[in-house]
């Protein structure tokens, strides 16, 4: 690969990477595994970059490669849940990601600030869930709550985050 091409790839990739990661982690639950799939996608995309048609959106092309890598992962780690996720489902989700790319990108910028606005207990639970990958039962034990309670707090926190992000986007749009 020539230098100019490598630079172009890096530029394009950096723009869509977080979107790809979100797509991958919508079906690959473990963070480390999702990162591995992302890494495999990057390697495959880099190798195939010469075949990429610049008239097509890069994100669509990269989502296609990611879809293939997810399928490989789901097959290699076959279980009841993974077996349900077929190519049609992954293709449909990739379409959703492609359509909403701009919106998803915009949302990301407000995330950190909105997390900091969550109440202490909710933030702790969100951290246990997303940074430590704990299930509701384990979080409930750590926090001295019932699992049902944890699920409710997580759902509310998620909705609060989404509203906070939407409000910020709206405010920015009205500026």
């Amino acid at each position: 690969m020539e230098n100019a091409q490598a630079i172009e790839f890096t530029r394009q990739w950096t723009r869509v990477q977080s979107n790809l990661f979100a797509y991958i982690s919508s079906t690959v639950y473990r963070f480390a595994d999702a990162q591995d799939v992302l890494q495999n996608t990057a390697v495959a995309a880099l190798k195939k970059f010469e075949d990429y048609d610049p008239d097509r959106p890069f994100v669509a092309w990269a989502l296609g490669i990611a879809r293939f890598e997810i399928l490989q992962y789901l097959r290699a780690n076959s279980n009841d849940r993974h077996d349900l996720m077929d190519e049609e489902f992954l293709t449909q989700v990739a379409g959703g990601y492609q359509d909403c790319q701009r919106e998803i990108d915009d949302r990301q910028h407000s995330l950190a600030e909105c997390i900091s606005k969550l109440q202490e207990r909710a933030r702790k639970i969100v951290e246990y869930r997303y940074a430590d990958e704990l299930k509701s039962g384990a979080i409930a034990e750590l926090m001295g709550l019932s699992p049902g309670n944890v699920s409710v707090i997580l759902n509310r926190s998620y909705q609060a985050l989404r509203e906070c992000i939407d409000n910020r986007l709206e405010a920015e749009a009205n500026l």
Partner: protein
Amino acid sequence: MNELILKFLNEESTSEETKQVIEWVKASPENAREFARTSSLNGQLRMHLHSSRENRAALDLEPALTETRAEAEPSKVIRMPKLTFGIAAGIAACFALLLTLLLMPLGKPVAQLVQNVDAEWIGKSISEASLLNPQTLKLKSGIVSLLFNSGVEVTLEGPAEYEILSVDKTKLHSGILAAYVPPGAEGFVVDTQALEVTDLGTSFGITADEEGVDVAVFDGEVEVLPANSSVKQSLTEGQSARLQHGGELERVEIDVAPFMRLWPVATGIVSASESFQFARPWPPLMRMTKDDSKIMVYLEKRSAPLEEDLVVNAVDPGRYPSLGNNETIFLEKGTVVRSHLLQFNPATNGPEGQRLRHTSGEIRFANPIIALIFDTEKLTASDFLSKMKTPIEPFARGLETSPEDYVTLSSDRLSLVLDLQSVAKGWDQIRVILAPDVAQQVVKGE
């Protein structure tokens, strides 16, 4: 539906609910967009919270993988071009670098898989040069070496399950492990089911199986904390301890046999023909092994800056000793090097010992060879690289032109082919100086 999608994303949906979400997404592009909106926030949360946690844990990290050294004084030295390697290696390095850059925002990889000898994995396989984030490695068989960003080297022999928690904390669930912790990376922890080993700057080995855990210290010192106790015990060079499940920590005589298979890999050897024999991890070069056909391989320095200029015999690929080149070649003080000593020392004594013994073979290293030392005077002058005390000062220890000895350094700088002849009282030694990384420069003096 949002609640159901969240349950799906967090692997908490039942089989029925999972099917329901999948069918709903397939039903229309608008549903797929809504799924993308919800799941993307979920993914972004994961990435954001993971990265901030990893970045907090990695604040004390030094980017040791790409060590650079200070510019040398310009006087009296002629710089040689940087070492060049095979195209494949170059491409691999480019990929690794590019991927490092690409994956940066997701949290730093903490280690790299640097050697893979016949590794078979359970589940996803990991290839050489892969960057590793915190994860569990499940090795079915074979041997792999990992280089952590702190400079810690860990070699694993399968079957093994090894969990990387962070740059300085790992857990060996089962298998055989050897670790080398360089100065500056002290505090590296290998936890096990039975006990936790904290390194205080050293080289050590651990075996863990269903019966218990054995720790053996080859060099330096470690601290051992049994899981069922709050009392730390210290183990130093040549000491070993065992903790059987449900028992107490007991001191045992060191047994290096379980580590013999992985040891060559742990010391940076990729492959070697049968004529090579590897010194044991412990005791350290206590006596000079004699053998009529074997070439002994001793590890001297792991990675250390030269305390003085080092005069060497050769820095270029080719066959040596060669005639006609009398210029002095040296590696500058401060150059970070690794060194091995290769030695052919026939055993047979008496009149029979006067008969020439011959041996030959090829050895391949993981790191590039930057210099060779093979004449008696320069070998003696470079003995500061070795802990070894030579019991009898041999009259000649280098390679001779009569009888003919040859060493050939391959063009990729990774292999040596040896063809050696010696009598019982003679020694053939070659000190092999390797680069700890590819950024090394070789300097030629006038």
